[in-house]
């Protein structure tokens, strides 16, 4: 989906664009579906917050296999920063209730990566991020999580928040049956009136305001050298690096 900012409000334009599940969220959903398969009787609810048009994204999640969907939407939420996004979502999530909350690691627009930690803090649950493996036994969650330099194993009691790494497993495709079934499901709607909010949300409550934006300096096609052989190619790069004082 093409992403842009509104020149007037400087908010992310979230309407009138084709919306997709962001890649990390597909992995989060895949993890939820795998864990459900191993815990008979459990259900997977998908939740998102955004403008009305985004609702259809949740249908894709239902088609992949989620049981239920809840969508928080309200014009008052426009222009939310990390603080107000997490505040509003955490109130909705406590209302929905959960044993395990699985969140994507990073969005591909805002890309703060800070929403999962912030949600865990609001919800007062343990926060285990970047999982590549997770098991639930006797109401405990044991996780193998990736770190920048290796991995760790962690074990916490539920309820908890988990984010998934891409190594958790490739997201499945929606089956035809799934797609047909999803069409018949209703997506429950929440608005800010349903949440016990004591502080303003959306742009009014945000603590960060975008002042300006611009495309990055253009980066065009540079020098092209056809290398007759390995030595010629190597010499071209070596000379170039010397010229740029990089070697």
């Amino acid at each position: 989906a093409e992403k842009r900012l509104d020149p007037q409000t400087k908010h992310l334009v979230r309407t009138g664009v084709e919306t997709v599940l962001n890649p990390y969220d597909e992995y989060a959903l895949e993890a939820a579906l795998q864990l459900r398969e191993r815990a008979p009787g459990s259900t997977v609810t998908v939740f998102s917050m955004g403008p009305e048009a985004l609702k259809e994204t949740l249908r894709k999640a239902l088609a992949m296999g989620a049981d239920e969907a809840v969508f928080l939407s309200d014009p008052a939420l426009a222009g939310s920063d990390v603080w107000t996004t997490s505040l509003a979502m955490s109130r909705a999530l406590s209302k929905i209730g959960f044993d395990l909350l699985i969140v994507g690691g990073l969005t591909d627009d805002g890309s703060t990566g800070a929403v999962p930690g912030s949600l865990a803090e609001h919800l007062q649950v343990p926060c285990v991020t970047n999982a590549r493996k997770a098991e639930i036994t006797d109401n405990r969650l044991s996780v193998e999580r990736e770190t920048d330099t290796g991995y760790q194993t962690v074990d916490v009691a539920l309820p908890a928040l988990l984010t998934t790494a891409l190594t958790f497993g490739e997201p499945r495709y929606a089956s035809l049956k799934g797609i047909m079934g999803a069409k018949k499901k209703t997506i429950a709607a929440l608005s800010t009136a349903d949440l016990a909010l004591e502080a303003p949300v959306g742009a009014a409550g945000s603590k960060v305001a975008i002042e300006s934006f611009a495309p990055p300096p253009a980066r065009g096609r540079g020098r092209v050298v056809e290398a007759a052989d390995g030595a010629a190619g190597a010499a071209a790069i070596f000379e170039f690096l010397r010229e740029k004082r990089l070697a």
Partner: protein
Amino acid sequence: MKDVIVYVEHRGGQTRKVTFEMATQARALADALGGKAHAVILGGGAQRLAAQLAAYPIDIVHVSEDSDVDAFLLDPVVDYVAAVAGSTGPALLLVPNTLSGRDVAGRLSARLKAGLAADVTEFHVENGAVACTAPKMGGALVTTCTIRPADYGIATVRPNAFEAQTGGAGAQVEAIEKPAGKQYVAKIERDVEEGAGELALEEAPVVVAGGRGLGGPEPFDTMLKPLARALGGAVGASRAAADAGWVPYSLQIGQTGKTVTPNLYIGIGISGAIQHKVGMRSAGTIVAINKDGSAAIGEFSDLLVVGDAFAIVPELTKLLESANASS
């Protein structure tokens, strides 16, 4: 917002390089805001690492060697940093934009009711407010945002985006009191370091990245590692190479991998798909080696050499090694 607090991340007994970049920014920001520059170092070795930081212009280094910090997942870290922030009043916190830094920043933003700016590559102070510049949407836009000055602010800082400058008068080292009445639950059962001692990909000044064009795992070891070594850099990869299992995902650069900002990026056997480009487009200089002159990577490379990587790379490594030996 007056004081500036740097959260120091360390692994395997070593302070991450981005710490020194943040310390340098903290000084300039604290001066512009009329406050002090602080750093917080937690866990085993904190005292020793505090001494290392003395070469940088920080006023106060807050330390705790509490063993809970290493035994439990981040909860003690959040408590300690929040305690320091509580003692200064509304401050700007600088946290590295790394896997664990993002967790710390997110947790603290809710705890301190703070405004958060992510992946910052430039700071300015305007009328007492901190303005942060950051690439967004995979670098397709560069945005500048301000954080409400009456509140706490948190900036996750992109590694390698700022210069580190020494020049401290020797910081005062203070112990942080253990937060009372805490019972931590997320115990780390096992902690395994894999790439210990190797330069972190996001922090490397030079990145040599390989893709599907390398055909298998061996060339990463036999060709890319020696080239990276000769340039003082680290090895990265495209998703195609990670998906094929040739390298671990921790080396993947791009939309669903790491974002790197080295002085020099060399892409070898990588076509330059948009999802890869968003992770490396801010590199200082981009060089590509590709046998296909029409590969997309040529559209944003400063130099594209059209030829066979297997013939070019070993020769290039030899040239660099002999230049290194004679200098």
